[in-house]
């Protein structure tokens, strides 16, 4: 069963059952690493990606529901050679330890900054309230998102 989806600006054919959680399609069919399996329950945010401008938990989103949408993952923002402003800000603030949760957090920050160009710390913390980080890098993450907002405003 083939499904056509658009991921990071590319149209791709995927041979997977329509009820396959998008997370496994992104990771295993398309070879993307950004979205991570964390809980499979929509509780932790590690698998988050942007679909049609909204933040989505890909572990709980079946493939069939994204057929006509544009999916953006961490890889769609930038690369090591050409990082996105948010990725640069996270590096500048060293806003990670293990980094496993960070992909989902950066995607949530992207959605926040798309909607609010000048968020304060409260806005940032509230936007990330459903994203779990176990290493305790929260304050660095907030600084990084603020830094990215300042950069983007230039």
């Amino acid at each position, binding site marked *: 069963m083939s499904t056509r989806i658009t991921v990071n600006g590319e149209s791709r054919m995927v041979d997977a059952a329509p009820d396959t959680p998008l997370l496994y399609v992104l*990771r295993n069919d398309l070879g993307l690493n950004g979205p991570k399996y964390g809980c499979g329950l929509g509780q932790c945010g590690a698998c988050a990606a942007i679909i049609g401008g909204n933040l989505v938990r890909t572990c709980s989103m079946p493939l069939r529901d994204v057929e006509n949408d544009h999916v953006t993952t961490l890889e769609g923002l930038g690369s090591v050679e050409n990082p996105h402003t948010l990725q640069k800000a996270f590096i500048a603030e*060293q806003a990670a330890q293990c980094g496993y949760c960070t992909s989902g957090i*950066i995607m949530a920050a992207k959605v926040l900054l798309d909607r609010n160009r000048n968020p304060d710390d409260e806005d*940032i*913390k509230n936007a990330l309230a459903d994203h779990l980080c*176990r290493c305790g890098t929260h304050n660095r993450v907030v600084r990084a998102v603020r830094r990215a907002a300042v950069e983007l405003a230039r």
Partner: protein
Amino acid sequence: MTDLVLSRRRFTQGLGIVVATFAWTTRSAIGQAPPNLPFSLRNNRKLEGWIRLEPDNSVVIFTGKAELGQGILTALAQIAAEELNVEFDKIRMVSADTTRGPDEQYTFGSQSVEQSGAAIRAAGTETRAILLAAAARRFDLPETQLKAMAGSVVATDGRRATYWQIASEQPEILRREIAANIVPKRPADYRIVGQSINRVDLPPKLTGRASYVQDMRLPGMIFARVVRPPRYGAKLMALDDTTVRSLPGVVAVIRDGHFLAVAAEREEQAIAALNALASGARWSDDGISLPDMSNLARELRQLRSETSVVGTAGQSEPAPPDAKRISAEYVRSYVSHGSIGPSCAVALLKDGHMTVWSHTQGAFPLRGDLAKVLGMQNSEVDVIHTQGSGCYGHNGADDVALDAALVARAVPGRPVKIQWMRDDEFAWAPIGPAMTTKVEAALSSEGRIVDWSYDVWSNSHAMRPGQAGGVNLLAAWDLSVPFTKSPPPRIPQPFGDGDRNAVPPYELARKEIRNHLLLDTPIRNGSFRTLGAHGNVFTIESFMDELAEAAQLDPIAFRLAHLKDPRARAVIEAAAATAGWSAGAKGDGWRGRGFAYSRYKTIGMYAAVVVDVSIDRNSGIVRVPKVVIAADIGSVVNPDGARNQLEGGIVQAVSVTLKEQVTFDRRQITSRDWAGYPILTFPEVPSIEVVLMNRSDPSLGAGEGSLAPTSAALANAFAHATARRIRLLPMTPERVKAALA
């Protein structure tokens, strides 16, 4: 370093048993070692086992320590670049790999900079000296006319040769044992060590380049999942796998005793098969009777235990009879590591050789136990460290490695990836043991502690693969020919196990500290960051505040009156000054401030912490707006990396203190997802101010020392705010409301 090495020798030789010290080192290994040789060099003497100059003009540094998200590879690369005099970006790190590189046992106990750093420093210094000597011969100049800089040896007459040229002309010069007889650089001359160099692993991780074992994709790889029993101790009685075998993509159903797994072509197929297989499995009603959560202190003390005195002084004289005696009891609940990414491994059996990619903390010890369970030789098994989610101790990493190897054995030639499901990690990974303590002290009329009596009850916090007398891997206990768990190790002070940091850091003329190592293990126990230090420092530092109050003294002044160590006093004074501590300030019923001090493992980093709280008396919710820490970690290799570790420890400690407990009924663990095991969230995280003391003493690991004093200072802040004390962690809203009622 010297002190640490000598004390380990003394402990080991003195006890005359196979001692599970910090590195489970055997006596014979220690017996062969020349004095003062850095610990990690003792069994890994070959210079080329640590450093290789590669044809592409890079330097490969081999370490036995693993990147767990703590930034160790960056810190070790800094040390290597510093001693070698090469540019930082020439260094490539190879880490914890049984196919190449040194055996440094485990990455734990905040020892990587201390151990691997010391070894790499010695190897780097020696390599630079060898290259200088070789260049002197090449140029026919005395070494005084040569300088090693930026990967070259430069002569005063202008001639120069790169390290790689010298090594390719005289390759034999680096094929030797490390003598470790050359003095490394003076810290005052450091250019790279001491700088906040950005983590080398973050740009790939933050842009989605394959970085984790979860990201491994090998040709022909299949996915597997394990059906765990419904509870500890249940046995697989019957299995109907006909449905499963007809599901799309299923490659194999593996059953060995009570171990049950399924492999499929696709990951979601493996998960669907897991659920089908679980429905087809019938488990016995067997189980292990779990403690009554509502009275952990009583339940723990009823378990069989082995008691030892781990600290004593002044017992020949009776305690002064007129002193005021005070006592209290404390409890810390069972704690989960709560890794965001459940444990994962990839295994491949090919041509009779098993290779396992794992985020284990101990590649070499894991290799040994995998070989034992698989009935293979060590030489037929390799473990290659591949990064995973942060672990904070002994999570499911090793267990899933065996799971993957057992499945891989059934499908030779096909790589097998297993990632545990969320509930596997919460219900089956080792859990940080609950602890209960009882402390009694006597105060003189001048407010001095004149007697101290302490008891701690806890299961072992150290049940890793590689320990003697058994196999500490989950699936091994379920096989048709089962293996048994190791008995708990006996880890002497100052490292300790459940008794880590049980001996107070204060000057106490009369004291006795008893460790009751619990032998029955109802809940699967293992290492969670700090081992017993968390419960012990929570107790000691809470109780120091109780004593200060009884003596009507300021908590900080009271501690300083019992402390001589100038480094201890310095961090306490720095934290107090930074936080603007005001002696005698009163809590107002909902806001308060608390203090705590500890020196991790008694011989590690120093930390003094001030925590502010505000309490919603109606909801029972405790908020922590601000934490200040002053830390002395000796010579700092990477200040920002150290701060990141200290901050992370503080956040984790606030989370553990306010929220975290593994829950269970009398049969099974019931906290199996994030709703059942909540942790601190973004809006709840305190602002943190870190003061790093600037010292040239040997480096002390920064990975763990901020946790325990944070928990104690938080409890003290609550007591300061409300004049009520909570001695049971976590301080949930229900308990807060009960305390304030």
